[in-house]
C-alpha cells in the first residue's frame, strides 16, 4: 500500500461527509437536547425531580460517573502499556483509545456536577474542601487526569494536524485555522522531533500511575466509608480492573463502528480484534477473580449488617440484577472469548463487548444504589428508581459521549497516520515523496 493511499484513506472521512453521518449527528444531538432540557428542569425545580432522597442520596448520576471514568482508563493504560511494551500492532488503535479517554472523561466529570443539584456549589470543593475528604481527592485527581489525557492525545496529533494543514487546503476557513494553530508550525525538523519524542516519553510514563490512581481514588469515595457493601479493602484494584475491562470493551465497539463506517478494513484488521479479545478475556478472568474474592470473604463472615445486603443481592430485591451481571456480563463473555470460533469472529467479540459494557454499567448502579438502600439504622430499606429526568440525562450522557467521538473523528484522523507510516519499512517510506513535494 502506498503512502498516498494510506493518507487518502485516513483523511477521507475528514474530506467527505455522508448523509448518514449528519443523520447520526442529528439523532445524537436530539438525545442530548432532551437531556439538556431535563437538566434545566432539574436546575429550576431542584433535586426533587429525581428519585434521590435522604436515604438513597446517590443514584444513577454517580453510577454514570464511575462508569465513564472507568472506561476513560483504557486510552491511557492501553496506549501507554502497548507503547512501552513495543507492541507494533497497537498503532491503528491507540488514537481511538486515547479519544475514548478524553470523551468519556468529559462526560464522566460532568456527572457529579449534575448530581450536586446546584452546580455553583462545586466551588465549595475548592474554597472549603478538606484534605481528609475523598471528594477533594477525587476532584484533584480527575482534573489532573483530564489535563494529562488531553495533552497525551494532543502530542500524538501534532504531526497529523500538520499533515492536514498542508494537504486539506480546500476545507472551510475555521478548520484550516484550527489546523494551523494546533500544528504549532510543525515541519518535522530534527529538533521538533526530538522535543516531541521527549514529551511523549514523559507523558507515557506519567499517564500510567495517574490513570491507576484516579480510579483508585474514585473507589475510595465508597471504600473510605463504613457502609455495608462499600467497606472493602480491595475496592481500589477491583475498580481499576473493572475500568480496564469495560474500557477495552468500549474500544472494541469503537473499532467495529469506525472500521465499518469509514471503511478501514485495511488498517483495523481481524488481528487487532483477536489481540484485544485476548486482553479482554484476561481482564474478564481477573474481574471474576476479584468478584469471587469480594463476595466470598464477606459472605463467609456474614457480619450482621452485611448479611442484610447480601441477602438482598443473592435472593432478594436486587438478585435479578446481581445474577444477570455475573452470568451475562462475566461468564457468557468469558465463554465467547475463550472458544476459538467465537473469539476469532468479529461478531462474537462485539456481542461480548456489548454484554460486558451493559453489565459493567449495571454493576456500578448496583454498587451505588443497593448499599445506600440497605438500612444502616433500624429503619426500612430505601427505595430508588430513576425518574424520567435522570434517565434523560443519562441517555444524554451516552449520546454526548458518542457525539464527541463522532465530531472528533470528523476533525482529526481516527487512526494515527504518522505512527502507521513509521511502522512501514524504511525503504518503502524513502520511496514515497513528502506531502509538500507531492503537491508541487
Amino acid at each position, binding site marked *: 500500500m502506498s503512502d498516498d493511499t494510506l493518507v487518502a484513506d485516513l483523511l477521507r472521512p475528514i474530506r467527505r461527509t455522508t448523509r448518514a453521518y449528519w443523520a447520526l449527528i442529528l439523532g445524537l444531538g436530539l438525545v442530548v437536547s432532551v437531556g439538556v432540557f431535563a437538566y434545566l428542569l432539574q436546575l429550576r425545580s431542584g433535586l426533587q425531580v429525581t428519585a434521590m432522597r*435522604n436515604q438513597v442520596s446517590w443514584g444513577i448520576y454517580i453510577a454514570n460517573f464511575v462508569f465513564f471514568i472507568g472506561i476513560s482508563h483504557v486510552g491511557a493504560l492501553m496506549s501507554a502499556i502497548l507503547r512501552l511494551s513495543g507492541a507494533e500492532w497497537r498503532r491503528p488503535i491507540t488514537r481511538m483509545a486515547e479519544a475514548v479517554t478524553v470523551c468519556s472523561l468529559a462526560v464522566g466529570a460532568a456527572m457529579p456536577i449534575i448530581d450536586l443539584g446546584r452546580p455553583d456549589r462545586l466551588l465549595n470543593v475548592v474554597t472549603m474542601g478538606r484534605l481528609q475528604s475523598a471528594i477533594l481527592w477525587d476532584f484533584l485527581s480527575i482534573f*489532573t487526569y483530564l489535563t494529562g489525557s488531553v495533552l497525551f492525545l494532543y502530542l500524538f496529533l*501534532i504531526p497529523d494536524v500538520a499533515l492536514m494543514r498542508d494537504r486539506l487546503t480546500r476545507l472551510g476557513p475555521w478548520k484550516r485555522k484550527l489546523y494551523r494553530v494546533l500544528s504549532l508550525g510543525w515541519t*518535522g525538523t530534527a529538533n521538533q522531533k526530538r*522535543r516531541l519524542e521527549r*514529551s511523549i516519553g514523559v507523558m507515557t510514563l506519567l499517564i500510567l500511575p495517574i490513570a491507576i490512581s484516579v480510579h483508585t481514588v474514585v473507589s475510595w469515595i465508597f471504600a473510605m466509608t463504613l457502609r455495608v457493601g462499600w467497606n472493602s479493602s480491595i475496592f481500589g484494584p477491583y475498580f481499576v480492573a473493572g475500568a480496564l475491562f469495560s474500557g477495552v470493551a468500549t474500544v472494541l465497539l469503537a473499532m467495529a463502528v469506525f472500521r465499518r463506517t469509514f471503511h478501514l478494513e485495511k488498517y483495523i484488521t481481524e488481528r487487532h480484534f483477536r489481540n484485544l479479545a485476548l486482553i479482554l478475556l484476561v481482564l474478564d478472568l481477573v474481574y471474576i477473580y476479584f468478584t469471587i474474592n469480594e463476595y466470598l470473604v464477606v459472605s463467609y463472615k456474614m457480619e450482621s449488617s452485611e448479611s442484610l445486603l447480601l441477602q438482598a443481592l443473592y435472593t432478594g430485591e436486587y438478585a435479578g440484577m446481581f445474577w444477570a451481571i455475573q452470568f451475562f456480563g462475566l461468564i457468557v463473555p468469558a465463554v465467547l472469548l475463550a472458544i476459538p470460533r467465537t473469539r476469532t469472529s468479529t461478531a462474537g467479540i462485539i456481542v461480548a463487548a456489548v454484554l460486558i459494557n451493559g453489565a459493567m454499567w449495571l454493576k456500578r448502579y448496583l454498587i451505588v444504589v443497593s448499599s445506600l438502600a440497605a438500612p444502616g439504622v433500624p429503619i426500612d430499606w430505601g427505595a430508588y428508581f430513576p425518574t424520567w429526568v435522570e434517565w434523560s440525562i443519562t441517555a444524554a450522557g451516552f449520546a454526548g459521549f458518542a457525539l464527541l467521538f463522532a465530531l472528533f473523528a470528523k476533525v482529526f484522523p481516527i487512526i494515527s497516520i504518522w505512527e502507521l507510516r513509521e511502522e512501514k519499512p524504511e525503504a518503502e517510506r524513502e520511496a514515497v*515523496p513528502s506531502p509538500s513535494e507531492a503537491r508541487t
Partner: protein
Amino acid sequence: MRPIALLVVAAFVVFLWMPGGAASDGSTELFIEVPEAVSLGEEFTVSAVLREHATGLPGHELVFTRGTLYGSIEIGRQITDADGRASVEVSISSGGRVVLSVSFGGEGVLRSSRAASALAVGGAAPPGPDFVSILFVGAVVAATIGVVWACYAFVLVQLWEIRHEGRRPAEGHGRNKTDR
C-alpha cells in the same frame, strides 16, 4: 349487726393496707435519669428505675434507645437490680438536643411502660486517633500533584519550543518534509 359491720369495715381497711394490694392492675412506672448537658463524645451514665407503686421491680429487662433523624437506635439493654434500677454507659458524637428513652416491654401481669428525657450535647468533638498528621498528608499530596503538574509544565515548554522552531525562517526544512 353493728360488730359485723365494724368487722367488714376493718377487713376492708386492712385489705387496702395490705402490701401489693393495689398492684393487681399490673401498671408499672419508669423513671429515666440523664444529665442535663454533656460534651460531644463524653461518656455518661443513663439510669432508669422500674417501679410498681413505688416499689422497685428487680429482674426485668429495660431497653435504652436514642432518637435520630431516621428513628430510634437501641443503645443498650440491662436487667434491673434489686431496687429496680438499670443503667448503661453512653457517648454521643453528634451535637444538639438528643432524646434518650427507656422502655419496659411488659412481663406476665406487669404492663409495659416507657420514659424519655432530652439532653443537650455540645462542645468540641473529641480528637480522633492522631496517627498521621494532616500537615504530613497535605505535604505528600501537594508534592505528588506538584510533581505531576511540573511534568505537564515541562511538556508545555517543549510544545512552546516546537512552536518557536516552526516560526523560524525555513532553514532547508520544507513543510512536511519529513512526513513521508
